[in-house]
């Protein structure tokens, strides 16, 4: 057979072939749409699930929904406290149970129609309507008869104690004096939504264009896993103080990509902890544009008190007493988290948490011995379960080692996929379970009420009538000092006396933005940054 000596080698036909295919790729690329750069681009965390204020639960969703739909109050940009929103002022009765809101007479929808008291009523009752099946309807349960209507015990919406006194006045009667009610009025569940659009388009109302909005911005476009584009609402009552015209909010599935986009100036702000690469926090902390701040979130371990051996408070205490929390925040999380022995994050007005159990291995061993497991002898094999994540696993490994070293007990680590983990936790199918909680509003109640006996978020099996009583008393009083005292008594029960949970640390929040370029963005405990006040300064030499 003849040797095959470069029969085709004279002209590189393969190269031609290759280049023409690339050309086709280029043409294909050319068909894709070209997007103009928005005035401000923000990476907002994971993809939003919905923009309907009645059904959203996640923080990325809330950040966008609140720019589109405002409540009677809105969050102040500095401390995230409630300030007048669609209501310009309000009166509170002497027993602090009746609020009378006076709406702005110049408040109009982005489409020009006036915003009136009936719109507020419709929006709140829509959240409470059982057919809406709103996850967060519980935020309206502070209103008299709201819970009864939402759970079907009352069928007439008119029984809910929220009424329009006239075209621009709304009166609400609460079950208890609720010191955080004005803050709740700025929350998404209390936002004002366009009745006629919802009635016309049903479940797909958010896709209506133009979408009437009551907030500082209006929705232009929403492409899933791509971006939500919003534009300034010229009819907003405070439009004069809205800084940027078009803002794009993008999701990110990869923290490394989010960081690359920021570093190459394709985005201006990254403001969700989920999309900051955890392994780079040490390096990022040295940068001027990396901001670390206190956050309304707590990390702890749930104990299943319905199962042996954690049905014995001495065992729970022993486990708590040997946790070196500082080691966890310094060696694993490394973001500046605060190791604590309590649940409610510091920084909440009028409240200071009681100290829980400290670090005392001798005391722990004594308690374990008393419980029948001297030196860990005879201790059953238990497991610590967590949802799959590198940092949760690292924390688990540290805890496992501390318990083994100090108590002589073996704890198995069980990594679980998110939904499996959640289901196991709510069905009390665990011994010890990694947990965390982020507050909805700036009050200890948002952390403590989940441990009331009937609360679906309790998930420890722990019930204590005394705790329920402290919580009820706290919420029935309008005297702030007395209230704080009751709440502190309640917290003492969970972090010092009964210990259904083992507190570890308080979260910190992270943001990435250049303070020389971005103004009007203030870090606060709620991690709440109204887009309306954010301004991007144009600097020479910067794209």
């Amino acid at each position: 057979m003849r040797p095959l000596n470069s029969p085709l080698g004279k002209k590189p036909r393969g190269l031609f072939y290759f280049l023409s295919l690339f050309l086709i790729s280029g043409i294909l690329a050319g068909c894709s749409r070209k997007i103009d750069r928005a005035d401000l681009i923000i990476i907002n965390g994971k993809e939003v699930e919905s923009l309907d204020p009645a059904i959203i639960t996640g923080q990325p969703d809330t950040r966008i929904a609140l720019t589109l739909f405002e409540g009677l109050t809105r969050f102040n940009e500095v401390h995230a406290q409630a300030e007048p929103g669609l209501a310009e002022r309000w009166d509170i009765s002497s027993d602090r149970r009746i609020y009378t809101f006076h709406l702005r007479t110049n408040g109009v929808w982005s489409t020009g129609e006036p915003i009136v008291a009936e719109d507020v009523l419709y929006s709140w009752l829509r959240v409470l309507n059982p057919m809406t099946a709103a996850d967060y309807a519980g935020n309206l349960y502070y209103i008299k008869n709201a819970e009864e209507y939402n759970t079907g015990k009352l069928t007439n919406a008119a029984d809910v104690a929220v009424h329009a006194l006239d075209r621009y006045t709304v009166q609400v009667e609460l079950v208890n004096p609720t010191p955080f009610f004005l803050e709740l009025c700025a929350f998404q569940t209390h936002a004002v939504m366009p009745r006629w659009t919802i009635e016309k388009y049903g479940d797909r109302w958010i896709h209506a264009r133009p979408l009437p909005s009551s907030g500082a911005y209006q929705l232009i476009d929403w492409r899933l896993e791509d971006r939500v584009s919003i534009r300034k609402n010229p009819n907003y009552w405070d439009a004069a103080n809205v800084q940027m015209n078009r803002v794009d909010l993008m999701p990110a599935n990869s923290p490394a990509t989010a960081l690359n986009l920021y570093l190459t100036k394709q985005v201006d702000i990254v403001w969700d902890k989920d999309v900051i690469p955890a392994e780079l926090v040490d390096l990022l902390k040295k940068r001027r544009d990396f901001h670390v701040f206190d956050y309304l979130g707590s990390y702890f371990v749930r104990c299943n008190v319905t199962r042996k051996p954690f049905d014995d408070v001495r065992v729970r205490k022993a486990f708590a007493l040997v946790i070196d929390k500082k080691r966890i925040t310094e060696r694993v999380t490394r973001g500046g988290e605060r190791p604590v022995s309590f649940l409610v994050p510091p920084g909440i007005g009028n409240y200071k948490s009681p100290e829980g159990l400290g670090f005392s291995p001798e005391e722990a061993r004594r308690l374990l011995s008393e419980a029948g497991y001297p030196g860990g002898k005879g201790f059953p094999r238990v497991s610590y379960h967590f949802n799959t994540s590198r940092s949760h696993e690292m924390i688990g490994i540290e805890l496992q080692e501390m318990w083994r070293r100090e108590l002589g007990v073996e704890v198995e680590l069980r990594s679980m996929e998110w939904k499996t983990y959640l289901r196991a936790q709510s069905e009390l199918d665990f011994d010890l379970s990694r947990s965390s909680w982020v507050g909805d509003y700036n009050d200890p109640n948002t952390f403590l009420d989940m441990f009331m006996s009937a609360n679906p978020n309790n998930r420890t099996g722990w019930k204590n009538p005394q705790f329920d009583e402290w919580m009820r008393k706290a919420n029935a009083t309008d005297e702030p000092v007395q209230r704080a005292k009751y709440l502190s008594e309640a917290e003492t029960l969970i972090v010092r006396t009964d210990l259904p949970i083992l507190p570890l640390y308080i979260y910190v929040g992270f943001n990435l933005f250049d303070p020389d370029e971005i103004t009007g963005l203030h870090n606060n405990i709620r991690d709440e940054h109204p887009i309306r006040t954010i301004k991007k300064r144009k600097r020479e030499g910067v794209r």
Partner: protein
Amino acid sequence: MYFLKRLMALPPLLLLISLLAFLLVRIAPGGPFDKERKPASPEIERRLLERYHLNEPLWKQYMLYLKGLSRGDFGPSLKQRNHSVNDIIGQALPVSAALGISAFLFALGVGIPLGFYTAVWKGRWFELAGNSMALLFVCVPALVVGPLLVIVFAVQWKLFPVALWGDPLQFILPTVTLGIYFSGKVARLMSEGMVKTMHAPYLVTARAKGLSETRILWKHGFRIAVLPVVSYSGPLLADLLTGSFVVESLFQIPGMGVFVINSALNRDYLLIVGLVLIYAFLLLVLNLLVDVAYTWLDPRVRYKS
């Protein structure tokens, strides 16, 4: 006739696949509405299940699904609650398809010449280089190739954007990342096919007839040698059209891959079934097209019904 029969088998096959997918997704523990933060009352959860008919017996849910499907309605997404499955597929499929076709062309454009010349220039340095390249392409996963390309071409040299979608320049790095593995596979298939073909008796005959070597290899050899690549192209294209989680996450591309993975993690039952059906449909149709291409490329192949 054979192909008509194959076409007619599509609907029952898809129905069976939808049933299997519908049942299998329910086996996983946890449900679409399990969240870290449970609603204040169990009543709310109950209403939520009721709203999406998840409280009904499974067979009834499936019947309802089929009813919707017969109208071309894949049902609502249980996670993206403002969007239907149709919305999501309508938005994501064109994006994944554009990236997929581009990566497919890249894989063939690089793989076929590479494999062809590796076989033809046997015994030369190119054989070693070609084989090594193909092996490297197959061995290094997108998870490594992508970040490397980003670091070198986007972060260091600033030739391409680091991520995002919409601009022609944003096509290049994801295309290479997605296509490079397949180009290695195609190259290996092509090379093997070509080596076998070059010794085939009909090529010896062609040479004996005095045909030029170029004509022998391109006209007679290539057509047969490329057949393994063609049969691989069907599933490959289906795979590429439906997106890749790794590449789409890495370059923040709003395609199908992200939804395929997230829908499973979120127990977004109807979205999973919808995506499985689209994937199955593409796979079946493209395999059929491969068989059609076979008859055209290799005159020896004839299908009998």
